[in-house]
C-alpha cells in the first residue's frame, strides 16, 4: 500500500522511508505541502498520508483541510505528525480533518500500530465501496442536491462515467425528484439507524439519460445528518424502463387479446345472419327477374295505371343490388375482423402481407375515413413473408392510426382530406412496406426519440407513447427487420419497414 510521507526534515524522511519499506509499505515522499496535495489528489495517489504539521509554504494542516473539502473519489486517511503536544494543537489538527496524530520524536512501534489502524479503516471503506460497485442498482450520495458519490451502476443507468457524476446536480438526472419527494411522506426513522434518518418508500420518477432518452426509475431515498450536521441524501436507483415497457406491452397485448376474442365472437355471430341475408337477397334478385319475365307476358288490365308497375320494375332490382352490395361489404369487414383478431400461430408462418394490410386498413377505416383517403400500391408478386401475423397486423394498425392522427392535425375540422398511402415491394432479400401520410411530419429534433417507449407528442387519451415502441420491438427484435422513417416537418412522414424474406425462401 502506498503511503505519502510529507516531511521537509531529512532525518524524518530517511527514518520513516526506511521503516515504511521494511513494514511492506510503498512510501511516496513529498518535501512540501503542495507536492503532498498533488500526490493525494491524483487518481492512483496514496490513500494514507503522514503529514508533517510544519512545512514551508502549505503546511500539513492546510493539506488536511484541502483533502477534506475536495471530495476526492476515495478516502484519504491522514496522520498528522508534529512536535506540538498541546491539547489545543491536537484539537486544531483533528478539526482540520486529520484522522490521527503522532508526536515527534516518533515512536516507531506506535507508528506501526497507528498505520495498521488506518489500514483497517481503509479496508472497511474498501469493502463498502466494493459492495457498492458490484451492486446492479445505482447507489448515489448527495449533499445539497449535488452528487458526492456514485457507483458504476449510476453511471451506466444515466450514460456517464462514474467520476463525471461527482458534483453534478441530481436534478439533472431526475428532473423534479425533489417535488416528488415532498409529495410522498417519509417513513419514520429506520429502527437500526439514528433518529436523524428519514427514508421514503420506493418512488417512481422519470429520469433522463445523457442521450436525452427518457428513463423510468424506481428510487429509494434516505436522508440523514452526518457527523458535521450536513444533510446527506442517499439514493438507491433502479432502472425500471425496460420492465415498464414490457408491462405496458403486456397490458396492451392483453387488451388486444380480449378485444380480439370479443371481435372474433361478434364476427362469428354476425356471419350467420349475414350469410342468409345474402343468400335470400340473391334469391330475391333471381326470383324478381323471373317474375318480371312472367309479368311481361301478361296483358295489362284495361284502365290500370302502368306507371306504378314500371317504377317498381326499375327500382326493385336496384334496391336488391344495393342490398347485396351492402351485405357483401359487411361480410368482407366481418371476414377481415375474424382474420385480424385470430390469435394466429405462436411462431412465424408465411403471411400474405398484402392481404393482411388490406384487412387491417379495412377494420381501421373508422379511424381514418373522415380525414384521409387510403390508397395502396401492392407488389403482386410479393412472396409470403415469415411473420407473426397478429403482431405484424398490430404494427400496421399502429402506423395507420398514427398517420390518421398526423393528417387530422393538418386538416382539422376543415373537411379536407389527406392521403395515407401504403405500398409494398420486394427490396433485395426483404419485403418493404412503406406507410406514408400527408400529415404534420416529425421534426428532426425528435426523430431519434420516437421509438423510445412512452415518448409521445399526443395529448392525453390519444396515445400512450407505446405504438412506435411496440412497432420497433416487433419489427426489429421479433422479425430481425428494420423500421425507419423519412420525414420533414410540414411535409408528411413515411415509415419504412423491411422484413427479411430469408427464412421463408429457405423453408418453402
Amino acid at each position, binding site marked *: 500500500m502506498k503511503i505519502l510521507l510529507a516531511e521537509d526534515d*531529512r532525518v524524518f524522511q530517511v527514518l520513516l522511508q526506511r521503516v515504511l519499506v521494511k513494514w511492506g509499505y510503498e512510501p511516496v515522499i513529498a518535501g512540501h505541502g503542495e507536492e503532498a496535495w498533488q500526490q493525494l489528489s491524483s487518481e492512483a495517489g496514496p490513500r494514507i498520508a503522514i503529514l508533517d504539521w*510544519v512545512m514551508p509554504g502549505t503546511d500539513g494542516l492546510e493539506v488536511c483541510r484541502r483533502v477534506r473539502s475536495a471530495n476526492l473519489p476515495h478516502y484519504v486517511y491522514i496522520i498528522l505528525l508534529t512536535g506540538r503536544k498541546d491539547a489545543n494543537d491536537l484539537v486544531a489538527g483533528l478539526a482540520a480533518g486529520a484522522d490521527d496524530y503522532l508526536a515527534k520524536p516518533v515512536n*516507531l512501534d506506535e507508528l506501526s500500530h497507528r498505520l495498521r489502524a488506518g489500514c483497517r479503516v481503509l479496508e472497511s471503506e474498501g469493502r463498502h465501496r466494493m459492495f457498492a460497485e458490484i451492486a446492479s442498482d445505482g447507489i448515489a450520495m448527495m449533499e445539497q442536491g449535488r452528487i458526492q458519490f456514485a457507483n458504476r451502476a449510476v453511471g451506466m443507468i444515466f450514460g456517464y462515467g462514474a467520476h463525471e457524476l461527482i458534483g453534478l446536480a441530481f436534478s439533472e438526472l431526475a428532473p423534479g425528484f425533489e417535488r416528488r419527494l415532498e409529495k410522498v411522506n417519509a417513513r419514520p426513522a429506520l429502527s437500526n439507524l439514528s433518529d436523524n434518518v428519514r427514508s421514503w418508500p420506493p418512488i417512481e420518477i422519470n429520469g433522463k439519460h445523457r442521450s436525452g432518452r427518457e428513463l423510468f426509475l424506481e428510487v429509494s431515498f434516505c436522508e440523514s445528518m452526518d457527523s458535521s450536521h450536513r444533510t446527506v441524501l442517499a439514493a438507491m436507483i433502479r432502472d425500471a424502463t425496460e420492465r415498464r415497457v414490457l408491462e405496458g406491452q403486456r397490458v396492451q397485448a392483453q387488451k388486444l387479446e380480449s378485444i380480439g376474442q370479443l371481435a372474433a365472437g361478434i364476427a362469428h355471430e354476425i356471419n350467420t345472419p349475414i350469410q342468409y341475408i345474402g343468400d335470400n337477397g340473391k334469391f330475391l334478385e333471381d326470383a324478381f327477374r323471373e317474375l318480371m319475365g312472367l309479368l311481361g307476358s301478361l296483358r295489362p288490365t284495361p284502365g290500370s295505371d302502368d306507371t306504378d308497375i314500371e317504377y317498381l320494375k326499375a327500382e326493385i332490382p336496384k334496391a336488391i343490388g344495393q342490398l347485396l352490395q351492402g351485405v357483401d361489404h359487411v361480410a368482407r369487414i366481418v371476414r377481415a375482423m375474424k382474420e385480424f383478431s385470430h390469435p394466429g400461430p405462436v411462431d412465424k408462418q408465411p403471411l400474405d402481407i398484402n392481404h393482411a394490410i388490406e384487412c387491417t386498413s379495412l377494420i381501421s377505416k373508422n379511424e381514418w375515413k373522415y380525414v384521409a383517403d387510403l390508397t395502396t400500391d401492392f407488389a403482386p408478386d410479393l412472396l409470403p413473408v415469415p411473420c407473426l401475423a397478429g403482431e405484424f397486423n398490430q404494427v400496421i394498425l399502429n402506423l395507420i392510426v398514427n398517420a390518421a392522427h398526423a393528417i387530422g392535425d393538418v386538416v382539422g375540422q376543415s373537411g379536407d382530406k389527406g392521403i395515407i398511402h401504403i405500398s409494398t415491394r420486394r427490396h433485395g432479400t426483404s419485403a418493404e412496406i412503406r406507410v406514408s401520410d400527408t400529415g404534420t411530419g416529425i421534426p428532426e429534433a425528435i426523430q431519434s426519440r420516437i421509438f423510445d417507449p412512452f415518448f409521445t407528442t399526443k395529448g392525453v387519451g390519444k396515445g400512450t407513447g407505446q405504438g412506435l415502441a411496440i412497432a420497433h420491438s416487433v419489427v426489429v427484435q421479433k422479425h430481425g427487420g428494420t423500421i425507419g422513417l423519412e420525414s420533414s416537418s410540414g411535409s408528411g412522414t413515411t415509415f419504412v419497414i423491411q422484413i427479411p424474406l430469408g427464412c421463408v425462401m429457405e423453408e418453402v
Partner: protein
Amino acid sequence: MLLDLAMDGSPGLIAELIEAFRTDTQLRLKQVSRALEDGDQTSIRAAVHSIKGSAQQMGANAMSSMCLDIERTVGDLSAVQVSRRVKDLETEFEEVCHSMATFPVVPPDGPHGTICGSGG
C-alpha cells in the same frame, strides 16, 4: 527499535540518518545565523524548532533542550544573549557529530544520549 532496523536488513540506516542529521542541521544553523544578523525572530524560531525535532529523534537530548530554550526565549532576550546561546548550540552540535561519528562505539547512555528509535 532503530537498532533492530539497523541489524535487520537496513545496515546503512544509522550512517544515513547521521549524515542526514549532520547536513540538515548544518543548513538550519546557517539559517539561524543569517536570521540573527537580520534580527528575524520568526525565522530563528522556525529553524531552531526543526533542529529540535530531529535532535530529539536522534537522541541528542541536550541539543533539543537547548533548542527549546532558544525557541521559548528568543523574544525576551537581547540579540547578544541569543547569539551566545546559538554559539553554545553549535558547539554542542559539533560534539554530537563527533560522538555520532564513532557510533556504534558510543555507549547507549553516553553523554549526549543515544539515537532514539522507540521514542521518549
